[in-house]
């Protein structure tokens, strides 16, 4: 049986934070979604202390084999999440990881404390890497800032802490090492790569947020290299993601040193992609 940060999982396939809204999906698919839930653990969309509307549209741009998004972390805020979303996410048949982001270490600490009190939550992911908010990059782009944040969060509760790393750093392995030495239980990567598209009509930025993050098969080779480099650099578990669309791709990330993988943009093409990738992976490496 696989364990992630000491939590038992029935398999290694997670979703990337912000790429699957299980509550909305249940409105579209009903309880059939739960009968063959596509992931072995579910990672929530990132929550912040205050509610956020997110970035103005347009929020999407299709690239060759990928997507640029500029969503901007819309969410109900901590209290809205605890009151409305958490009870519904607790009905999912897999362990729950809650992703949190703070605009300061104080904010992040408040989120970690409050979320960490809840029995429904198995693990907490610190999103220090979202490229679509003003200050999100600052923490995760710098090893010392990341270490300071993790050191502050570590004593606040017993829940395992996963640090979501940005690929938009000079040396992601150095940030991973700093996070691990500061007490992170696992690291996950990659978040999206910064990207931009221009409106063909007037050559001005297409996305309402100006710039966005690139995901999908277009980033897979970059992600694989970063996962490999990080896995070499740390002893904690690594969750690898970036353009995974098949069991073969997932197997590559596991071979590069990841303990688990996450599926993101491929779920947009098929909500059952996570289940298919899990099946294909099992067929490649029968236990």
């Amino acid at each position, binding site marked *: 049986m696989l364990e992630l940060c000491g939590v038992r999982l029935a398999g290694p396939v997670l979703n990337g934070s912000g790429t699957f809204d299980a509550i909305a999906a249940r409105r579209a698919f009903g309880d059939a979604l739960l009968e063959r839930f596509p992931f072995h653990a579910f990672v929530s969309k990132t929550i912040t202390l205050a509610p956020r509307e997110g970035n103005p549209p*347009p929020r999407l741009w299709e690239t*060759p084999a990928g*997507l640029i998004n500029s969503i901007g972390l819309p969410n109900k805020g901590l209290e809205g999440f605890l009151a409305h979303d958490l009870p519904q996410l607790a009905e999912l048949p897999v362990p729950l990881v809650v992703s949190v982001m703070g605009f300061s270490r104080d904010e992040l600490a408040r989120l970690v404390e409050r979320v960490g009190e809840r029995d429904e939550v198995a693990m907490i992911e610190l999103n220090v890497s979202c490229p679509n908010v003003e200050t999100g990059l600052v923490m995760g782009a710098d090893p010392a800032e990341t270490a300071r944040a993790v050191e502050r969060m570590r004593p606040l509760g017993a829940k395992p802490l996963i640090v979501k790393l940005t690929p938009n750093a000079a040396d992601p392995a150095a940030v991973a090492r700093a996070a691990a030495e500061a007490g992170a239980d696992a690291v996950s990567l990659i978040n999206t790569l910064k990207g931009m598209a221009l409106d063909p009509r007037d050559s001005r930025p297409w996305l309402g947020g100006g710039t966005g993050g690139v995901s999908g098969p277009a980033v897979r080779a970059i992600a694989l290299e970063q996962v490999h480099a990080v896995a070499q650099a740390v002893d904690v578990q690594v969750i690898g993601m970036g353009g995974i669309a098949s069991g073969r791709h997932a197997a590559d990330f596991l071979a590069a040193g990841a303990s688990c993988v996450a599926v993101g943009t491929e779920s947009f093409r*098929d909500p059952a992609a996570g289940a298919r990738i899990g099946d294909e992976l099992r067929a490649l490496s029968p236990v």
Partner: protein
Amino acid sequence: MSAPPRAEPRTLAPPARRTGRVTRADALGAYRLVTVLDPDGPADPRPGQFYMLSSEERWGGGGDERPYLPRAFSYARIRNGELGFLVEAVGPGTQRLAELREGEGLRLLGPLGIGWRPPSDDTRPVLVGGGIGTAPLVCLQDELGADATVLLGFRSAAHAEGASLFHGEPAIATDDGSRGRAALVTDLLREDLDRDPSATVFACGPPPMLEAVRLLCAQLDVPAQLALEAGMACGFGACFGCVVPTNEGYLRLCVDGPVLDAELLLPMAAR
């Protein structure tokens, strides 16, 4: 942030992409009408709901090495398990879908979203369509009956061939006057509502048309439901990409729409 409780004409979708077979793909003036046999999907989608479509083969490798993501299409009609979609080639995704031929595989996810709600009490339904946006009104007319008023606007006579999907004799306006009246479909709507304002308007079409419908119906205090469109990656609420600003904040068209009450929408200048 979250949608308030409101009527949800919604048939649930199976939670996985499936593949159907194209049974016909015919030119319909400037459009293509693609019908697909969908034995694994529900036989009772609600008018106004949509599907995410992509071809089984050669999805990718077109212009700019796209398409990559599936494309959202309201269904025009369902008959004997065969779904009909109206396609106009305007980009790499729609171009590929327009190239589909009989026997090819079409990947589908759906039906998705919330469809048209019933007309308000004691009102007559008025269906207003522009261009490719006429598609979700075809199945609505199938449901409401042939005596519903149908007003259609197109660029030209070639596009106005799309009107042949409707029963009876819909009123037609074209931009160039090559078929029907040389007018905007909203001109037809104004005349119709002036004659009898006890109506519920159901409209789908390009954004400027929908804005004109919204304004007109607001002025005349006529209830209106608008089927909107936005760039959409997933169709089931995962990507948060397809939001429109409303007086309740941003709503995701894929799970809270695509049909929205006009009174929810902000003026286009404020969107």
